[in-house]
């Protein structure tokens, strides 16, 4: 089946290193997305026409454009246009943050809109100031709704990093291909075994994360 090639030489370690590259890109992008997404999401709830208009266009672009096209635009197009040579990793983080910020902002906006008006009113009626209402009542509820949703975003990002091999980043999928190519003669059927192991690696990376989000969701359900 070709599993044996995995244990030849440094192959397994190389696969793990590839996974690490993917994780690094996605985690960095997630952190940037969460910070920028919260800011943008809060701006969106202000309902200022200019902000609403721009954010709508931004969200639509992210939804319509395949991530791969965005990767090509940033990595190849941007470099040609400006002469600035971005590394493939930097381009990947930019594209993933661009995508993640939009998703995150939409989640934040949704969570904020889902807090019933009565929560603001009853806090006000109890004598809380606006700031106290946000600190003690509104923001804790938003965070409880937001964290499980943003964890889902992390797992989706990890999965989507498989695209970055298209701009030459050697991540787990690329390493797998290299292993298959290198062993074409000795193990012509290695593809199944190698990709099965990659499947398992992605699963091991994403499953605990998605399980953790389910746990939080359950713990905080109202």
């Amino acid at each position, binding site marked *: 089946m070709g599993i044996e090639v995995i244990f030849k030489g440094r192959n397994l370690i190389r696969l793990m290193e590839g996974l690490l590259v993917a994780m690094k890109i996605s985690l960095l992008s997630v952190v940037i997305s969460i910070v920028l997404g919260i800011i943008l999401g809060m701006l969106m709830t202000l309902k200022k026409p200019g902000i609403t208009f721009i954010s709508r266009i931004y969200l639509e672009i992210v939804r319509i454009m395949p991530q791969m096209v965005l990767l090509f635009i940033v990595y190849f197009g941007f470099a040609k246009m400006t002469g600035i040579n971005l590394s493939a990793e930097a381009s990947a983080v930019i594209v993933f943050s661009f995508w993640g910020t939009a998703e995150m902002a939409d989640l934040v906006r949704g969570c904020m809109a889902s807090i019933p008006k009565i929560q603001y009113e009853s806090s006000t009626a109890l004598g809380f100031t606006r700031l106290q209402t946000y600190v003690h009542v509104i923001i804790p*509820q938003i965070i409880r709704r937001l964290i499980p949703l943003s964890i889902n975003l992390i797992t989706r990002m990890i999965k989507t990093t498989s695209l970055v091999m298209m701009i030459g980043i050697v991540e787990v999928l690329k390493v797998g291909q290299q292993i298959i190519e290198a062993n074409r003669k000795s193990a012509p059927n290695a593809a199944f075994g190698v990709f099965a192991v990659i499947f398992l690696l992605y699963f091991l990376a994403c499953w605990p994360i998605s399980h953790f989000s389910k746990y939080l969701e359950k713990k905080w359900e109202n």
Partner: protein
Amino acid sequence: MDEILKIEHLNKKFDDLTVLEDISLEVKKGEVVVVVGPSGCGKSTFLRCINGLETIQDGKILLDGETVNPPLGNIKNYREKIGMVFQSYDLFPHKTIIENLMLAPLKVQKRNKVEVRKEAEELLEKVGLSSKKDNYPRQLSGGQKQRVAIVRALIMHPEVLLFDEVTAALDPEMVREVLDVIMELARQNRTMLIVTHEMAFAKAVADRVIFMDGGVIVEDTDPKSFFENPATERAKKFLSTFEYNE
């Protein structure tokens, strides 16, 4: 007895729509005023104006002779003195029952934690919910949640309590337990303004009945005359909708 709450020529508009027109009312200390009237007559808005949840276009609302609305920048201080319980369950879902009760006394009134906890536990005991103090609101029934909401208002030591159709969203079998709590408060001589559709309860609890229709006070009288011998056609018509005769 002295007036604790005074409303002078209150006018409230939503854009061009007049909701309340020239409402004047004086409430004495310890008085229980029940406000009734058809849906949309402005009675909920009236309550919300009293603690400044709604801005007003004209007139004045005074508590202990000091202006609450239009706000003079210190409305927060008055809100602590005016407790309000709403129709929908408005407990903080991320906090336990005892935390719900303690939050405002600790953060708004900066009271001592031990003392506040003790009072919260005593009040829960009184409404029969001691066993629920570490539960979350989602684990309580509607009637239990409303009883907690009443306690959450009480623990602030308000001078006036406002009840805005607190049983309207409850299942019928839970209405009683909430009304019993309010009745008990009436016995303690609390000053209360109660908006309700429960006519039998209104009759039992009220010292005075205000009948509103179309944003104005149509009748302001004692419960006996209002329910047995209403002075106006509008009140008669309103009361007849609660009877069910062939």
